[in-house]
């Protein structure tokens, strides 16, 4: 007989277990049982018991007891810092619209955790035309020489804020002076009424000087200065923010300890807690986004658990998605890149949103609009839903 065929019925196993349990029992009382001894063999029979049990099971279905349902309660001792972006005339700025981000008391869009402030999208604008994928370029070709027109277009398309990337200050491009960059910022502030993010070129020597000059020009406006990192002169950036009432974006590379170190250093310089937003680096979908997912989730969890060094709102360079070749490359077997690209940015954004990001730097109009829709949908429970079962027959 093959091994698989030697199935022992569960009843027998149960009986054996039962006998095993009886091992240490000294006395058993049996009711309604006859014991026959024939030729030295003991036969035990309980003629009426077994049929009676089976019969009863057939007649009365076993009563299934429903255990009590106790909802899970998500409670956290700490909340995330709340940061105001932009300042009105009364507050020392000139913004007609201001926003707040952060203030979360739980994990993003979890039951019972209301998002105190709606996450926001800030639209990427550059002070000189950068090389952009076709899917994006076609929407902005006519305004790429004019940051103000480009910013207005972005706001019309559904963004809440604007980020001006001062790439022309890089010595490898146009090497514009910090003062020239500051003029661009002033012009932008004079022509739009929402808060702005001021971004450098990524040049480690130049950026602190550029951000400092812009911070002075934009004194009192509560702009975000992007970004302070550990390996540049973050002290200069922090001081510019303190003296001129701005917010600092603290950027690290997917490392919770590095983020804590930078936050600590910035706060020790006198930056107030309501002047700090973190950018833990958005690795792209397909190229390490799982590292960002885990580092952001850990940061948010530790912040909510009470670690005040990490309990700040988060920003995501969602535009990084366009660095993935799957977002821009023309390939028949990957499907239409005019849809694939914006979906790549959208899904990168959705993933970050569900990890707790409060501010999204984005580029493609459809990605911006879709993410805004998702944020709206996830912000409240709807009264009326779909007729769900119909999906099977639709």
């Amino acid at each position, binding site marked *: 007989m093959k091994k698989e065929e030697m199935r022992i019925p569960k009843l027998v196993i149960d009986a*054996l*277990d039962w006998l095993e349990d009886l091992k240490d029992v000294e006395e058993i009382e049996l009711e309604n049982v006859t014991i026959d001894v024939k030729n030295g063999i003991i036969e035990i029979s309980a003629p009426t018991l077994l049929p009676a049990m089976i019969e009863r099971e057939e007649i009365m*279905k*076993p009563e*299934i007891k*429903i*255990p009590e349902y106790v909802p*899970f309660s*998500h409670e956290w001792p700490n909340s995330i810092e709340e940061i105001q972006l932009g300042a009105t005339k009364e507050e020392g700025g000139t913004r007609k619209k201001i926003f707040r981000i952060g203030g979360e008391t739980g994990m993003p*869009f*979890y*039951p019972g955790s209301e998002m105190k402030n709606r996450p926001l999208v800030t639209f990427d604008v550059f002070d000189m035309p950068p090389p952009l994928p076709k899917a994006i370029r076609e929407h902005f070709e006519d305004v790429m020489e004019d940051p103000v027109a480009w910013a207005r277009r972005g706001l019309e398309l559904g963004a809440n804020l604007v980020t001006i990337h001062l790439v022309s200050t890089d010595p490898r491009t146009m090497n514009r002076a910090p003062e020239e960059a500051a003029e661009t910022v002033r012009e932008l502030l004079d022509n739009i009424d929402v808060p702005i993010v001021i971004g450098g070129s990524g040049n480690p020597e130049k950026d602190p000087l550029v951000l400092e000059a812009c911070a002075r020009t934009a004194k009192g406006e509560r702009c975000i200065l992007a970004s302070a*990192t550990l*390996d540049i002169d973050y002290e200069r950036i922090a001081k510019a923010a303190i003296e001129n009432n701005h917010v600092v974006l603290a950027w690290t*590379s*997917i490392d919770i300890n590095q983020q804590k170190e930078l936050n600590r250093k910035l706060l020790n310089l006198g930056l107030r807690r309501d002047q700090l937003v973190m950018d833990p*680096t958005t690795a792209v*979908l*397909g*190229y*390490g*986004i*799982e590292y960002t*997912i*885990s580092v952001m*989730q850990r940061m948010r969890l530790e912040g909510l658990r009470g670690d005040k060094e990490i309990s700040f709102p988060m920003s995501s360079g969602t535009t990084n998605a366009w*660095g993935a*070749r799957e977002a821009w*490359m023309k390939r028949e*077997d*990957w*499907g239409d890149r005019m*849809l*694939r690209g914006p*979906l*790549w940015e*959208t*899904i990168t954004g*959705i*993933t970050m949103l*569900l*990890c707790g990001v409060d501010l999204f730097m984005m580029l493609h109009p459809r990605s911006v609009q*879709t993410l805004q829709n*998702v944020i709206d*949908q*996830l912000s*409240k*429970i*709807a009264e*009326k*839903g*779909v*007729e*769900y*079962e*119909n*999906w*099977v*027959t*639709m």
Partner: protein
Amino acid sequence: MARKSPLEVYKMLPGDNCGECGEETCMAFASKLIDRDAKIEDCPRLKGKKKEKLIEYLTPPVREVKIGDRTIGGEEVIYRHELTYFNPTAYFVAISDNDPSLEERARKVKSFVMERFKTDLKFDGIAIRNKSGDPEIFKEAVEKVMEIEMPMILCSFNPEVIERALEVSSQKRPLIYGAIDENLEEMCALATNYECPLAVISSDLRKLWELSTIATGSGVPSIVLDPVTDSLNMRGTLNRIVEIRHQAIEKRADPFRWPILGVPAASWLVEGNGYWEEAVTAAILQNRFVDAMILNTIETWAILPLLTLRQNIYTDPRFPARVEPGVREIGSPNDESPVLLTTNFALTYYAVEGDVEGKLDCYIIVADTEGLAVEPSIAGGKLRASDVAEIIKENKLEERVKHKKLIIPGAAARMRGDLEDSTGWEVLVGPKDSSGIVDFVEKHWKK
């Protein structure tokens, strides 16, 4: 949730180191059990109560369920950094039973494959919808799909329709979709008699809890929970999913210790929604614990980012994605072949390797950037010119090539001066994306 301990498992094993399981000691066997590299049945001496206790201890908070030969569920943690996720979300494509191109569509689902980093991204199965309402048409559709040999979900709320299909397909262990309040008793009987998993469906968590309890109580072997993917109420949908998973993992609440099914295909119920909205719904669910999904889409532009996201999320964080630093030979390079530089972040390295393999004979210097990609390693100072010089020296590259020219990634352009100083080589700044390397070499190398 406390992590399982080998010592706890060891206590439940016979402890006589008999070796019959193939391991030298019971302790070694205990470790393998925890890592899911061994099965309880491998120990022939384990019996009775002790065995039951061990099974209970080792069963993950979210039980595993098999649909066909595809396992779903089996998760132990809420967040992947707490351990890892185990069974990637299974993607089922919906096909209606009266679709004239049913077989063609099914074959497309089966043959769909995209390679990313040595892994094939594929669909996992087919969900057959009883759009016709007719048991015979449904049965015939199921028979046709069976020829494709993929895991199946049978979608109908009519027990007669399901039974007709189960008569021909139950040995394939399809998921029965599904049980609602109105058909619960009949569906439970079918799932029990045909020994197939059963989906229970409700947007009311207390009702879902009840359906699951009654189903298991009446003998259904395994359950899949569908808390309703409602495109008009995605917040409600997420709240339910999050609640179910916390009940299972944090409280081991039995009725919810089953895999969760999401149905982005249901987003088409909302007027005006299409492939884009379905992909967005799927992306939301992919970020929130869902163990299996039913979609309509087989559009590549929509499915590629989703399967990529799945691949990312289910990467085991316990193993850092790094490759060994050093020098790799691609193809059969000679002393005139180009030398490229990249980092030891696995995804970066494989992208570069994939772009040159079969097209270019060359050497790749893999710098130790502690597993960071090019841009972050430069931002974080992890790509060091002195390390690159060291690798060149250690691997005697100056004896292997005659030219002393190094092509670096476009994103590493600002390292050029440093690299030239440290290595004494001429540094060429290559393209930003490694897909352009072959073109670059053709233009700039063979002069």
